[in-house]
């Protein structure tokens, strides 16, 4: 994970936020954070206006958009790896559970590193579209459920975004990563008694839909 991403202590009761320093273009409302807070009966939260929906007019922007999903996955699994839930309470993992989370953290970290390197090679600066990430889970089973949602959203974002990438090298990297994210999705769905491949086709999503699919974690609302 890049140095801009770190785990914060619970900023709000029931919601642990992960702040990120850098943003892209396009204003969005972090309504997901508000929704999460509402779910847990929290008080007023300052509305954030952040930028998630960028004008992806270059490969750098397009890759940064997809990189944002890798940051999201890495952040979620790092949270799980800490063995603390969203209330900062201990959430000890069984050895098999820890092994799975460690595996996912490692592989998502490899994806992040490779995509950051690619963005730099294209002359850009790696950055996330999300200002912050919020994952609400009390127990391992909920963490896995969120993992299923995040991995599935990521596969959709990649499958939708890859055709817009012009760089051959960047495309090939994304091809390789999306297969592995599909494998991750299946791997986290199986222990949840879910079908590992619920649909015959992993349809691509456009940026607006991809942002909407994850707004409960990012608070980013595609206007």
């Amino acid at each position, binding site marked *: 994970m890049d140095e801009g991403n770190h785990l914060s202590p619970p900023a709000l009761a029931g919601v642990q936020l992960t702040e990120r320093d850098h943003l892209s273009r396009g204003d969005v409302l972090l309504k997901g954070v508000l929704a999460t807070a509402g779910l847990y009966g929290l008080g007023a939260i300052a509305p954030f206006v952040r930028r998630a929906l960028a004008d992806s007019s270059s490969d750098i922007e397009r890759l940064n958009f997809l990189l944002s999903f890798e940051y999201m996955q890495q952040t979620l699994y790092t949270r799980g790896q800490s063995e603390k839930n969203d209330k900062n309470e201990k959430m000890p993992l069984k050895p098999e559970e820890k092994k799975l989370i460690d595996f996912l953290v490692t592989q998502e970290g490899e994806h992040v590193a490779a995509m950051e390197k690619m963005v730099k090679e294209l002359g850009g600066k790696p950055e996330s579209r999300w200002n912050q990430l919020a994952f609400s889970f009390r127990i391992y089973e909920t963490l896995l459920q969120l993992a299923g949602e995040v991995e599935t959203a990521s596969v959709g974002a*990649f499958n939708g975004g890859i055709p817009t990438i012009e760089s051959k090298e960047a495309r090939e*990297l994304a*091809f390789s990563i999306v297969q592995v*994210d599909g494998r991750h999705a299946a*791997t986290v769905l*199986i222990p949840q*008694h879910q079908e590992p491949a619920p649909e015959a*086709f992993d349809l691509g999503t456009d940026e607006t839909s991809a942002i909407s699919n994850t707004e409960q974690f990012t608070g980013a609302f595609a206007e």
Partner: protein
Amino acid sequence: MTAAISRRNFMGMVGGSAAAAAALSACGSNSDAASETSEYGDGDAGILNFLLTVEYVQEAFYAELGKSKLFTVAAREALGKFGEEEGEHIGKLVGQVEKLEAEPIAKPKTKFELKTEAGTLEIASTLENVGAAAYLGQLPNIESDPLLKLVLSIHSVEGRHGASINDLLKKPVTPDGPFAKPKNVRDVIKAMKPYMA
């Protein structure tokens, strides 16, 4: 399949023999993604026909498995869901080949010796993981954007299938590590040849 799959249920269905299966290398080659699909047709039609061949072999395997006495009925149904999805892939690929005014390739003759549950899952692992690598190998060669979107949507599902079968076998769900590796036509056909009559 109507019931959701769980690893616990699935493992219960297939029994311990599967987990003890001898390891077969699903992705034994790190060959590059050079495309040699001209014998399957021109351009995108050739690529789709090559991938269609892969899908036909996979579908035939699941059909054979469905007829076998291996596994419980529930397990056969669970695995059969993957076969149904291969059938959907075939339908789409055939339709796209026809749209390109080309001839969809004929179904290859197949042969499967499904003697043990573990051995059967090993074949499934090979077919699914090689299938995913075959798609990955062809993705860079596709010229049409709509076809690229279709093939992408199938590619990650093949990855899901491969990971699921490997999970049952207690093999790595990402056999190539964090970055999936492609296979070229020659290596894909070589891996599938034992199952093509």
